[in-house]
């Protein structure tokens, strides 16, 4: 084991736990505002880290609107089988797709992901949704938009716009999916590499 905590890769925290929480609170309110309330809302998180973000958002929406049952409006949408780079990447086993009991037909589906980059994941997600039903509206919410789009796709709700160089890596670490090297709870967004 040669890896040390402070690897030679420069890493810089751009959002800490409080920043993430504030951004999600703001997005939750934006979603309610754009939808003029909570009617027909369905939040679909894209694995892995989009799903815990969707769950957090659902709870914030429920906190703002007591008529909402957070667990009833959130689901997970796996897009693995719809990716356009399957034959160029190591094989990835799919994650489960779980829709809320209400389904997605005629719903307002908000796709949730952690980082918006090329836009290809969202393209795959749109295809996946079409095979599952016909929502009335599909919107997109992301924690980070780092630019460098390769497709005509834009987010409706953005936690933070983060101008990056393409050699940099944006890492989102959430307590639901990640643990810090020392085993402690982690909620942060960091940029690795670059200058």
């Amino acid at each position: 084991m040669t890896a040390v905590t402070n690897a030679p890769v420069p890493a810089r925290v751009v959002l800490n736990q409080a920043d993430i929480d504030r951004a999600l609170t703001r997005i939750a309110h934006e979603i309610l505002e754009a939808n003029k309330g909570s009617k027909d809302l369905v939040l679909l998180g894209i694995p892995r880290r989009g799903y815990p973000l969707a769950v957090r958002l659902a709870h914030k929406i429920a906190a703002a609107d007591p008529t909402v049952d957070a667990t009833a409006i959130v689901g997970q949408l796996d897009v693995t089988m719809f990716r356009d780079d399957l034959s160029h990447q190591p094989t990835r086993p799919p994650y489960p797709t779980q829709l809320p009991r209400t389904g997605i037909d005629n719903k307002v589906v908000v796709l949730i992901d952690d980082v918006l980059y090329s836009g290809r994941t969202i393209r795959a997600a749109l295809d996946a949704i079409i095979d599952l039903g016909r929502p009335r509206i599909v919107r997109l919410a992301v924690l980070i938009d780092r630019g460098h789009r390769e497709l005509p796709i834009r987010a409706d709700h953005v936690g933070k716009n983060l101008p990056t160089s393409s050699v940099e890596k944006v890492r989102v670490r959430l307590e639901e999916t990640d643990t810090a090297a020392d085993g402690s709870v982690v909620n942060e967004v960091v940029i690795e590499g670059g200058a």
Partner: protein
Amino acid sequence: MKHLLSTEDLSLANAIRILDTAEEMAAVGDREVKKLPALRGRTVVNLFFEDSTRTRISFEAAAKRLSADVINFAAKGSSVSKGESLKDTAQTLAAMGADAVVIRHWASGAPHRLAATDWIDAAVINAGDGTHEHPTQALLDAFTMRRHWSKLAGTASIGADLKGMRVAIAGDVLHSRVARSNVWLLRTLGADVTLVAPPTLLPIGVEHWPCKVSYNLDETLARGVDAVMMLRVQGERMNASFFPSTREYSRRWGFDDNRLRALDSLGLKDTIIMHPGPMNRGLEISAAAADSPRSTVLAQVRNGVSVRMAALYLLLSGDTREPAATAGAARTNAAHSNAAHSTKESN
């Protein structure tokens, strides 16, 4: 994983991976659009040297649900009438751009030959070879058992193995590729397997297998089982003196109505009855047993498509150009010839 040739060399991690992926594939069957685009533009060839409509259509459905192009190739060629050689057939398929070859062959080891030689570079899936293995059958059996076992335990089947499950496999083990594949896979998944057969239908060397062996089905049931898998028995085996008569066979080793009742009186209310099909009703399994609520025969067929989708997806979706560790170091002779015919000759 570049090929799926046998369960003997399938690791626990890969077995669980296939079963878990199959769970996700099963969900597709419940959707409005029962199709995924994952293998769009990929070509899957069903290369069948032995008739098996069931297995072929199961693979065909699996490939089509993943949007692959499917070519069915029913190759004539038995040990008696010799058609085109396996090598020439394989090279033909390679020239046609096959990405995966699903091969069913009467000769044990034929899929290994395809995988080990440079005749074709495609992923090879063994859809049953001689009396050797039938790995996707064992995987769909394990999938069926895992769902049952998890349900009894009240846990999710994703990620689960079969630790503690008692499985009896009864019938013509000697000639059964299903039995072989099941023994290895169930061992890997932690199940406790007992083979039940007349001594004539057990291979010499079975004592080295990771399972128990019994000649008595009633005793095996009485010791307690969670799944009983009945193997197909060919009545013709009688003519080669493997057993005296079909009547005596079904009395001693068939799953008849008495044994079905015995499950109840033994208090084995959750024991399932499995059969890989096609069934010989009245020989190795009675109609009442085959049609009872304990029977998983149709679930097995349904699960077969999911498991085969998982296998095709996992073998074909990855970057096949990455250096894959191939099982069984193949040492090939450099010499090749274009001659087409193959004959048997003693030295």
